[in-house]
């Protein structure tokens, strides 16, 4: 029962989900050094060097200027656009002492309190945010 998906259709459909960046091979390539930078913060000595001088620490990584700026600004939506993956970026916000809820809420345009209240009330409904094209 191998009904192999056409790769072009398979990938194109991902762009039809509102407010979502699927971590495709294209993003994984663009974000490789960004994600490896984030991964480096798993080590205590690297976290110390990063905290001591963020800009200097970033110079060790062949990332684009846009990626470096977005890291310094903790602009997580921008970082997703530039190839960052949330599980790698988690090393950056964990080093900042933020929880997943705190960091994730920054991507939604809501305050942490608003976001937490939405989650406690059952989360965001999929209604209307499943598809851009078909708006359902």
């Amino acid at each position, binding site marked *: 029962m191998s009904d192999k998906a056409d790769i072009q259709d398979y990938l194109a459909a991902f762009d039809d989900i509102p407010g979502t960046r699927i971590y495709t091979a294209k993003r994984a390539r663009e974000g490789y050094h960004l994600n490896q930078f984030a991964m480096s913060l798993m080590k205590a000595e690297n976290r110390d060097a990063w905290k001591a001088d963020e800009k200097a620490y970033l110079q060790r990584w062949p990332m684009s200027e846009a990626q470096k700026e977005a890291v310094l600004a903790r602009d997580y939506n921008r970082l997703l656009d530039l190839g960052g*993956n949330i*599980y790698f970026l988690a090393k950056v916000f964990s080093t900042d002492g933020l929880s997943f809820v705190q960091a994730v809420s920054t991507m939604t345009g809501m305050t942490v309190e608003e976001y937490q209240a939405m989650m406690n009330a059952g989360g965001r409904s999929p209604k209307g945010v499943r598809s851009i094209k078909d708006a359902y």
Partner: protein
Amino acid sequence: MARISAGVATSHVPLLGVAVDQGKTGDAYFGPIFAGYDWTKRWVAEQKPDVIVLVYNDHASAFDANIIPTFAIGTGEQFKPADEGWGPRAVPDVSGHPDLAWYIAQSLILDDFDMTIINQMDVDHGLTVPLSMMFGTPAAWPAKVIPLAVNVVTYPVPSGNRCWMLGEAIRRAVESFPEDLNVQIWGTGGMSHQLQGQRAGLINAEWDNRFMDSLIGDSDAVRRIPHIEYLRETGSEGIEMVMWLIMRGALGQRTRLLHRHYHVPCSNTAIGHLVLEPD
């Protein structure tokens, strides 16, 4: 002969590990989540599985962006809890079962599943949180664990159908292992959640519950759910539910429900938990 006696599905939210480690499992927020695991804790203590094949995903802990195995099996003697950026969890090391793990690896490769074999790796919350949920806080984990890591982060991740077939092949491998072992298979991750972008916080209780329904009995419709449906309906991280299909595939044609639990929210995530038996 070895046999697969049961399957367990559970979410593996890191915050659950924090709740266990900080003794908060009975408070107002976590109490209702953990209460849904009380039945399973008693059941698993009676069942005394010798080995658990624990299907989970690594969250940029053991594997960075350099190596991305689709299916990896841990064949080592011991696996240490990973330092995920705030120090490793203070939980026991995980003991593997190299004899059975190597046997399964060989059998799977001969069965057309080209596994990645891992002798040494640290295991993150994806693996240790389910152990905490089922076993609490023992001095040593009461069962051997064979980690089976699945890429559900970098696309394309394996299809639901491929996951189901891997489960079937794991069952064939276990059932031909000459030693008499009680083996359980656990599928972890999910349920609906999205940790990124403006749509973060998505939860779809209706879809999640339909998915759980369809793992009970003899339906195999879930194996044909395309990735895009998981993503649209259950959020970008809801795709982890394909790992439940490895568990389901290993239970054979029919399953019987022993226990079921669902709760929203835990952190950003819908908690789902099933205990199934081959029927």
